[in-house]
């Protein structure tokens, strides 16, 4: 535990990239942001409190970089429908089931703040408190962003009209595990 906390950086790289990609929706921009974050983290390591959540600390640096770039650019980083969805495209739905590609298309339509809150809480498993600290907002703000993000996805995916949801848990599991094509 007494080692250099910077030795831990490498363990957080996959999560840092995933978070960057969720925010930017663009692989090249995401990787540039990860690079900036690493350089900043390296030089600011003395501000990291040993024993606290390093991942949250790194995410904070990354998101601050992102929002400050967005402000400078005076617009949202575009390509919302770009690489993020295309690189992982799948066969179109043929049986009305929710497809992962549909989910991605809906996900990129959320606001940056909604995507970020939902990823931190829903996917990364941060507590509302850690997510709030990472984003520099109140816990209630995170909760409401997560709720609005889920409501918006429900609407975009027509989940409220999705008959499958009225069906058995088996049907839900089919949606959730989404039969992927067998590895070739």
């Amino acid at each position, binding site marked *: 535990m007494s*080692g*250099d906390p*910077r*030795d831990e*950086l*490498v363990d957080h*790289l*996959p*999560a840092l*990239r*995933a978070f960057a*990609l*969720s925010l930017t929706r663009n692989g090249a921009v995401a*990787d540039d942001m*990860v*690079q900036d974050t*690493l*350089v900043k983290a*390296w030089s600011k390591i003395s501000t990291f409190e040993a024993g606290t959540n390093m991942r949250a600390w790194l995410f904070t640096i990354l998101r601050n970089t992102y929002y400050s770039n967005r402000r400078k650019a005076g617009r949202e980083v575009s390509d919302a429908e770009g690489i993020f969805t295309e690189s*992982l495209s799948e066969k179109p739905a043929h049986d009305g089931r*929710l497809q*992962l590609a549909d*989910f*991605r298309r809906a*996900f990129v339509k959320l606001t940056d703040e909604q995507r970020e809150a*939902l*990823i931190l809480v*829903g*996917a*990364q498993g941060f507590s509302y408190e850690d997510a709030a600290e990472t984003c520099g907002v109140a816990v209630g703000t995170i909760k409401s962003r997560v709720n609005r993000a*889920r409501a918006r*996805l*429900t609407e975009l*995916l027509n*989940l*409220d009209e999705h008959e499958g*949801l*009225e069906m058995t848990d088996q049907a*839900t599991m089919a*949606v*959730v595990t*989404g039969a992927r094509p067998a590895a070739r």
Partner: protein
Amino acid sequence: MGHTRRKDKETEVIDENLRRVYQDMLDEKVPDRFLDLIAQLRSQEDPSSGGEAQ
């Protein structure tokens, strides 16, 4: 009664799909450029601060 169950179901479907999308991103191989960058940052450290031997 059905309403809450329905909401729970929607949340469940969304979160499961979210986790799958996120997991796909986590499973991507980390490009060498980041490992190279860390190695480079480390090598630029003042050697007098020690820690090189680790």
